[in-house]
């Protein structure tokens, strides 16, 4: 037993050392890019990689994925330090203030040229700045439109909605698309993931918002906001045209899983949602969002950042510069990752691809950018938890919004 144990220990020690031996440098600079997409299923990422490596043969791009709870997990990675800190990190605009404040991402002003800054849409540029410094480069901009499952519409003999349709029209259509069996819904008219930006889309259509423009006060108790939230709650509980989270999640953890499974007739989303739909050969059409008190959509900017602790910021910037350049943004548009953040990109070919692509571009013109707040992480955590009770019917809209506004006072003041 003595010698057996010895052999075992030696064996295990060798295997311990093995992983560290593998991964020896190959001569190329490796740049690791972290995102929430799966590289193997993402044509946009594949295109970006091949075009970048063509003009930069000494750099190899490796794509890693954090599939869910991205912002929290990636912050853990950066906070943990060590080898796993990526060189380039995708980041949603609502996280930029939090990450910048904590020092988790590096300012990029020293890398960016004025010409670059001027080529961006103003709304994009604002989203990338915090405290006067630029912390991110634009990945793309997304406007929200309504995706309609043509097959389900045809089955229910409902016409595809046209520009200018109202909330009432929307509700009627959703009801027609909802099917019941044994008193349980097996198909729903509409689904929205309970993220802050999805809810925001409906708030702004009614002229409401989460906070005042200076982000000092939470204004969800205003009548316009309450109306919008009540409308959403009714969709789930009163009219039952929208599934609960558990009902939707049984088809998958992705926000668009239920839609992909053909169980939901309509869902609001951005251009990148169409990538998954195309992969699954879904027959869909995009229409503008319905009109509340006004026609509005949300513009959401996703970005690329260089995290603190990146081993080679110069190489990281090269990659980011390409991704957000005219050429990179053209690829972004052509592969449907999102709409280009740069004014210089040619949308002609994109518009020719599908007639309803025009809807996406048009929506940009009446889009209101998503509100990013300095204390956004805590604020949206508070609002999400309270609104969750609304979606479950455990709290009334009045109660929940009053509580959010009240508790938000301290949070937005930084306490």
């Amino acid at each position, binding site marked *: 037993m003595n010698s057996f144990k010895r052999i075992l220990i030696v064996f295990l020690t060798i295997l311990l050392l093995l992983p560290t031996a593998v991964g020896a440098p190959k001569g190329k600079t490796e740049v690791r890019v972290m995102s929430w997409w799966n590289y193997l299923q993402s044509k946009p990422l594949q295109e970006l990689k091949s075009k970048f490596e063509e003009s930069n043969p000494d750099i190899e791009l490796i794509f890693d994925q954090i599939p869910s*709870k991205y912002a*929290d997990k990636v*912050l*853990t990675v*950066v*906070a943990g330090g060590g080898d796993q800190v990526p060189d380039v990190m995708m980041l949603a605009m609502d996280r930029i203030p939090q990450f910048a404040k*904590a*020092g*988790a991402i590096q300012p990029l002003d020293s890398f960016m040229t004025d010409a670059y800054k001027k080529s961006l849409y103003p709304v994009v540029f604002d989203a990338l700045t915090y405290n006067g410094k630029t912390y991110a480069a634009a990945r793309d901009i997304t406007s929200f439109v309504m995706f309609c499952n043509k097959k389900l519409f045809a089955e229910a003999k409902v016409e595809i909605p046209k520009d200018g349709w109202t909330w009432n029209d929307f509700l009627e259509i959703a009801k027609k698309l909802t099917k019941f069996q*044994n*008193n*349980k819904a*097996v198909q729903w008219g509409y689904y929205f993931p309970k993220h802050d930006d999805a809810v925001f889309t409906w708030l702004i259509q009614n002229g409401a918002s989460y906070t005042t423009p200076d982000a000092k006060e939470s204004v969800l108790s205003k009548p316009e906001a309450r109306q919008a939230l009540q409308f959403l709650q009714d969709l789930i509980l009163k009219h039952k045209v929208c599934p*609960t*989270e*558990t*009902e939707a999640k*049984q088809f998958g953890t992705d926000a668009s899983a239920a839609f992909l499974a053909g169980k939901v007739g309509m869902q609001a989303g951005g251009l990148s949602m169409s990538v998954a739909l195309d992969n699954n050969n879904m027959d869909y059409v995009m229409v503008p969002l319905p009109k509340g008190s006004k026609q509005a959509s949300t513009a959401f900017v996703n970005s690329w950042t260089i995290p*603190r602790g990146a081993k080679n910021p110069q190489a990281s910037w090269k990659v980011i510069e390409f991704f957000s350049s005219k050429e990179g943004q053209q690829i972004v548009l052509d592969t449907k990752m999102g709409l280009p953040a740069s004014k210089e990109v040619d949308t002609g070919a994109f518009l020719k691809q599908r007639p309803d692509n025009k809807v996406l571009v048009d929506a940009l013109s009446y889009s209101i950018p998503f509100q990013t707040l300095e204390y956004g*992480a*805590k604020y949206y*955590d508070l609002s999400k*938890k309270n609104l*969750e*009770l609304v979606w*479950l019917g*455990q709290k009334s809209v009045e109660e929940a919004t009053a509580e959010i506004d009240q508790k938000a006072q301290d949070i937005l003041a930084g306490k």
Partner: protein
Amino acid sequence: MSLPLKISAHEEMIGTKRGFSLARREEITGWLFITPMLIGFIVFSFGPILASLIISFTDWDLLQAPKFVGFVNFAKLFKDDYFIQCMSNTLYFVITMVPIILVVAMTLAIILNQNIRGKAFFRSVFYFPSVVSTVAISMVWLWVFSPSDNGLLNTILHKIGVMNTPDWLGNIATVKPSLVLMRTWQSAGYYMVIFLAGLQTISPELYEVADIDGASKWEKLIHITIPLLSPVTFFVTIMLMLAAFNIFEAIYVMTEGGPGGATNTIMYYIYHNGFRLYQMGYASALAWVLFLILVVLTIIQFKLRKEESQ
């Protein structure tokens, strides 16, 4: 009597050569043998407990330097609605899981301690789920509890005529009982085996004597088995209590603290605060309060037991 003399003379010889007495050598050896374990626990267990207390007095998000804030975290804790929510949720699990699993496990052990055909098979089968990881089991039970007709539980209930089945994991009223059901299914077998071990220590003569006295099965159970199992019962109660406080994986995979915070337990809340909101100080304060509660509960249990045995 010559042997001890022989030893001590021999040892004395060697001992005096090296200047150590027998007792001293034994002391050193004793300490040496426990040193690896002791050092490891000091570094990774005792030290961290202390460190946790220190961190709880700071405001720290891991990325910036920690800021000393005194008792602010503890004050915040008692005003935190979510803390009260997660304590009551955790309490629910403790109050339900401990007695239920205890009774189920003890019953199964007593049954399978008799001469039943295939008892080794049954023992293994009941024990098996406790061997599989909670993460894997949670994935499976997501299907058991799935709403609509895709769920195993719903389908079975529909077949026996129960049509109005709730959304087990999505309904605030049913989510906790569902988790209790799942955990009972998974871990009853583990505790059953512990009870089986305890049953082996009861001498069969006691039963024979009782038989002679004409005791019924029930009387034997109440007057012999259960009292003699009480050390094991005590042990299992404490283990179950700890397990109930530690519930995490099932919640992480199946409900994420929801719906509406109904399964937000203390462990999940600490994880959420520490590794999602990056409030290391607050999370540590939560952990320490929990620790103190557990210490108090355990001391109460020990005291009750002392009284009982007297």
